[in-house]
């Protein structure tokens, strides 16, 4: 089964065991591979690609894919491949940052809620309920029209929209944890709030956080694309996958210059799918029931 040098599964910690299960999941590994390839390309493209995203070539307007412009050019003669790579940077930057922000907010709100008294906890949870029941699209539009367009406002809008779900899960986990004997033991040894939260709370929420973060990154990429498509996210000339689709939405472009929307759309779908496979794989790997086998 495993190499003789490997530590037997039973000797490893719970996270190592979960990762051990993850690497046996084919779809998840495929997703991870695709995502890494996309990520590497996005990060390194200036080193090996001749064009920059905002470089205008008036002799090559709306040109189809060719040896020099792999993915063709757009209406003002910019290279679609370069814009796709740059757009990927922006989309991923927005997604990763907003998920990181919502992870911190979600965890802290859940933590505060779980150890405060009935009144504060109740108030926070009603707020979370409210945030969760509001139709996300409307909330998104209202927030976006208040804070405006650009990278930072887009990150803010997406973060604000996504933390409530997480804080609810974290709160539920921490409330359950609080009654567990090993946490009572830590209290009995004199542990303060910081120790309880970061030595017991955080490690025992790691599965929730990892799975949430992965799936939420895919979600955030889509949210960013949606916002930018509506003209409320990343504003041109800065490229993002969403505003590339927005730029290509006229009927003539849709029909005649297929490469202008097909490649950003394809990149979006491929990336989101790949991340979702990784997320599903992580969720299965961290499922407590799989430890029993």
């Amino acid at each position: 089964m495993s190499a003789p040098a490997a530590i037997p599964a039973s000797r490893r910690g719970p996270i190592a065991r979960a990762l051990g299960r993850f690497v046996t999941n084919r779809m998840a590994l495929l997703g991870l591979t695709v995502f890494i390839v996309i990520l590497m390309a996005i990060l390194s493209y200036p080193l090996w690609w001749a064009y920059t995203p905002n470089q205008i070539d008036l002799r090559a307007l709306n040109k189809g894919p060719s040896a020099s412009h792999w993915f063709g050019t757009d209406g003002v003669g910019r290279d679609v491949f370069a814009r796709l790579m740059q757009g990927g940077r922006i989309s991923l930057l927005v997604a990763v940052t907003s998920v990181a922000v919502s992870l911190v907010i979600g965890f802290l709100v859940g933590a505060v809620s779980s150890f405060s008294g009935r009144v504060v906890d109740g108030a926070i949870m009603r707020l979370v309920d409210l945030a969760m029941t509001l139709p996300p699209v409307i909330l998104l539009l209202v927030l976006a029209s208040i804070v405006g367009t650009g990278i930072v406002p887009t990150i803010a809008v997406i973060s604000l929209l996504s933390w409530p779900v997480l804080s609810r899960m974290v709160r539920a986990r921490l409330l359950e944890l609080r009654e567990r004997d090993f946490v009572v033991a830590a209290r009995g040894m004199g542990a303060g709030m910081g120790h309880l939260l970061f030595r017991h709370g955080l490690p025992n929420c790691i599965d929730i956080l990892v799975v949430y973060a992965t799936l939420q990154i895919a979600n955030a990429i889509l949210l960013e694309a949606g916002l930018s498509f509506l003209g409320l996210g990343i504003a041109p000339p800065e490229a993002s996958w969403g505003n590339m689709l927005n730029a290509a939405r006229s009927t003539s472009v849709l029909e005649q210059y297929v490469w202008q929307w097909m490649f950003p759309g394809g990149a979006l779908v491929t990336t989101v799918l790949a991340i979702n496979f990784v997320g599903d794989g992580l969720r299965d790997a961290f499922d407590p029931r799989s430890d029993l086998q």
Partner: protein
Amino acid sequence: MEEPLLSVRGLTKHFKPAGFSRGAVVRALEDVSFDVPRGKVVGLVGESGSGKTTIGRSVLRLVEPTSGEVRFNGIDLTKLSAAEMRRQRKSMQYIFQDPFASLSPRMTIGQILTEGLEIQRVGTRQERTQRAKAALEAVDLPADAFERYAHEFSGGQRQRIGIARSLALEPQLIVADEPASALDVSIQAQIVNLLRDLQIRLGLTMLFISHDLAVVEYICDTVIVLYLGRIMELAPSEQLYADPRHPYTRALLSAIPNPDPTKCRTRQILKGDIPSPANPPSGCVFRTRCPYAVERCAGVVPPLEEVSPGHFKACIRHEVSG
């Protein structure tokens, strides 16, 4: 006389129903008073739900008592601020009933054993490791357990780890909450013997909780019999077994099979179930199951009276309980 290490007075705990629901208050403990002298073992026995765990946890303020005093080294713990209480916790440790729930699945045994020392900022990292290893040795576990996780160990070994964790801080008082009852019968004696040895060797003071009178007889100097959150009888160990005064204690003892046929006690079976602590009987809480109950028993709560030096019972019918 020397001041006892632990002195509990009028300890009362009422659990309020959770949330905004209007369920009844659970009267888990009602006016419980007892002492635990230094270097002695006091046993707490009672059926399930009698409040043993609640006493053990209230004493260490892992549960906030509703009222009453818990004096430890003369300091009333219930009056301490959170920070002062955290400092006191170094000197008092709890051993849990369930060795599977009491060890974190995400920490190595080394991390579990040094956790308390780290919290209390004892020594350097090396000194902490050394003390944890010494504790591991004291409970007869190999030193290579240090790098492993709890799930690799059996119930008995895990309970040894739990005991080692409580020893690592070198506490004065240990509350052991049914430390053997979740284990295989074949392992139970090992764990109880280990605790007994450690208690003698380290001069520990211990509050030993059990529902098994036979175990308590072996390990305890004094035994407290609880029923529905109240003390029924409190006596030195030998006296309680030789000369039980309270009808409840007698019933409990008669349920233990006696190996000596000449001293065969008449077996009394308690009728009925324990009433709910949410709605305890008036007067003597035991009266619904007591074979000697009379009308008077419903009227007054029997006070804990001294029948001989150090031997107390809470029963008003002296003609039957002597």
